[in-house]
């Protein structure tokens, strides 16, 4: 079996989730009742038998450190390989590298020393359940230098405007990479490349004053490099705004979406909390909702997601909402189209109603 090492490159991900990314990077935003965005990328790597993962982090990565620990939840707390969070290094003052190339350059030892022949580089904003070993075998069959991963979307949601799109020829070769808003081949911010070529391209990019590896090393070199397009066909969401976060969270309530994201043979792992099972009291009334452990529900909840340890008081009503860890909704409060970040408290009888297309968002630890 050929070995792959992983890089999760957060360097150029912008933190566009408003209140949810005031104090944390996008990769650390809670999602799906008990996960963080980055859990999907790491779990996909762990399930694809990737044993070394580097996380290139630049900003607001402290809650990421808390969450990832040493990779424990992914069985990545290892002596050989393992998970490394790599903030920018204070290294050679004569270093001329810029942008994410600075990360690649500072951490070239990770690439060179990895017990792997291939490197899979991924962002954290594309939620999916993908087997990178399959990507590798297609990559090898295609004879390509680089394989980029994309998915064909059915509908052109606004979040795709921020993604690159691919033109792919009949042989699966990428002919151009651009931002055409009407192209449905959405690049998923993941590529596979051999270790040696990555190392070589990094050097070339730096020598040419580049600042963005994907743009300078791959996108602008489609003519001299054979870039293959791997099509991913499973459940997919691109989350780079509150709106896409909210819409895609609701989609998890659909059985198909849910089952193709949370597979028994390729589970999504996350940091373990020791919460008791969710408790439903006689007055509870819950429908079409994802509920995490540690919740205690006395009120009514519909079309919503409750994260771990949420308390819903008697007579409270929650609809179309996302309630994060340890929030307390007191009796007779009403929440509709609302996102509450962790540790919020909504006092008795209070009503908060956002719009279906623009939910009302409360930041961490607010009491109202």
């Amino acid at each position, binding site marked *: 079996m050929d070995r792959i090492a992983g890089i999760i490159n957060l360097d150029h991900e912008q933190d566009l989730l408003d209140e949810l990314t005031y104090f944390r990077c996008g990769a650390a935003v809670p999602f799906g009742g*008990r996960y963080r965005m980055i859990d999907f990328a790491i779990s996909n790597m762990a399930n694809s038998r990737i044993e070394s993962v580097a996380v290139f982090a630049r900003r607001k990565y402290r809650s990421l450190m808390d969450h990832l620990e040493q990779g424990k939840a992914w069985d990545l707390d290892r002596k050989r390989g393992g998970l490394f969070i790599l903030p920018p290094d204070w290294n050679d003052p004569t270093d001329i590298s810029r942008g994410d190339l600075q990360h690649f350059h500072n951490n070239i030892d990770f690439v060179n020393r990895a017990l792997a022949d291939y490197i899979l580089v991924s962002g954290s904003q594309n939620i999916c359940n993908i087997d990178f070993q399959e990507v590798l075998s297609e990559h090898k069959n295609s004879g390509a230098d680089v394989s980029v991963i994309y998915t064909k979307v059915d509908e052109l949601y606004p979040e795709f405007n921020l993604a690159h799109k691919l033109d792919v020829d009949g042989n699966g070769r990428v002919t151009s990479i651009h931002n055409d808003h009407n192209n449905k081949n959405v690049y998923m911010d993941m590529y596979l490349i051999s270790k040696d070529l990555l190392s070589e391209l990094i050097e070339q990019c730096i020598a040419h004053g580049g600042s963005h590896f994907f743009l300078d090393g791959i996108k602008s070199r489609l003519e001299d490099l054979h870039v293959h397009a791997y099509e991913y066909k499973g459940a997919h969401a691109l989350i780079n705004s509150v709106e896409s976060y909210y819409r895609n969270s609701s989609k998890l309530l659909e059985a198909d979406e849910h089952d193709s994201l*949370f597979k028994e043979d390729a589970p999504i792992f996350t940091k373990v909390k*020791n919460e*008791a*099972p969710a408790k439903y009291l006689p007055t509870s009334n819950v429908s079409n909702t994802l509920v*995490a452990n540690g919740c205690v529900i006395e009120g009514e909840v519909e079309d919503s*997601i409750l994260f771990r340890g949420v308390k819903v008081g008697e007579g409270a009503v929650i609809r179309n909402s996302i309630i994060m860890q340890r929030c307390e909704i007191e009796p007779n409060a009403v929440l509709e189209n609302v996102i509450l970040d962790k540790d919020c408290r909504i006092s008795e009888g209070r009503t908060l109603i956002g719009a279906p297309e623009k939910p009302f968002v409360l930041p961490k630890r607010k009491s109202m």
Partner: protein
Amino acid sequence: MKNKECVAMLLAGGQGTRLKSLTKKIAKPAVYFGGKYRIIDFPLSNCTNSGIDTVGVLTQYEPLILNDYIGIGASWDLDRKFGGVSVLPPFMQAEGGGWYTGTANAIYRNLQFLNQYDPEHVLILSGDHIYKMDYNAMLDYHKESGADCTISVIEVPWEEASRFGIMNTDDNGRITEFDEKPKEPKSNLASMGVYIFRWDVLKQYLIDDAENENSSNDFGKDIIPSLLGDYRKLMAYTFEGYWKDVGTVNSLWEANMDLLKKEPELNLNDQSWRIYSKNPNQPPQYIAPSAKVKNALINEGCRIKGEIDNSVIFYGVHVDENSVVKDSVIMPDVKIGKNVTINRAIISKGSVIEDGAVIGDASPESEITLVAEEGSVLASSYATNS
């Protein structure tokens, strides 16, 4: 490294035959409880929460699942470099070996394990009870009283006292007599099977006991009576709180039902005394629009489309449309089809209940129905008290 003040030895060898098919393949301490846990999670979590970081688990009968479940102890924060949890099956020695002959023999045969930690005190636990207890508070009491042995006791109703091992004490809490299931109890203080011994004292008694051919090598029958006979100082430590032996199908069912009260005596949501367990890594539970859920404990990985009333549902359970689960305990990964009715039952792990099946007897005085592990119940069968 420094020695350990107190090392715990957890007797997890029991077969628990009164739990019928629930313990056919697993030892009693591995039996499921409370929607998420196994019985042994309680003493192990109590150890961690009490700051006792060295635990020997004495296994004998079918240890594989327990072994696999405990693993490296990481779930209970007991994956320590010096100490942590060690599973101790009987092993072969140059002088020959054999199975543990009794609770005291199990400890005696692991003298070498205990000696490497050179503890001052040894805490003896059993893996049969559901309770939250601060062993450190008991240890403080033991040290302050200067006892050779401290036995934790709980007040039981007088009318039930004759079912227990009863401790008779003087006004200072010193144990004067030990009555095993007395017909006419003189006290209602029942032994919980939790002992703390001074290690130097216990060691000598274990060695003497091993040389005594007439001994059954049991703590309750041999060691405690010997200490009492020698006028050693034995103190009773009174525990207050929830404590339940889940040794029968009915008591296991009852203990699960106890959790469904609005303010259960056993609070599983107490952040300062968490009950740790191995995590199955399942997505959040999904409660469908067709579902009705009232008075329930439900774990991750469940998909509920039917009705759940007054029941405890473990992880990975699916309940399909128009099915009703009432007054029952559904163990992990059970799949329940459509139009199923389940009343007053315990459904063992991995069972498949086919569409239209009817299980259990709703009448409140009936016995609890048990569906055996990985059983399959067809619509035509009417399983009750199996």
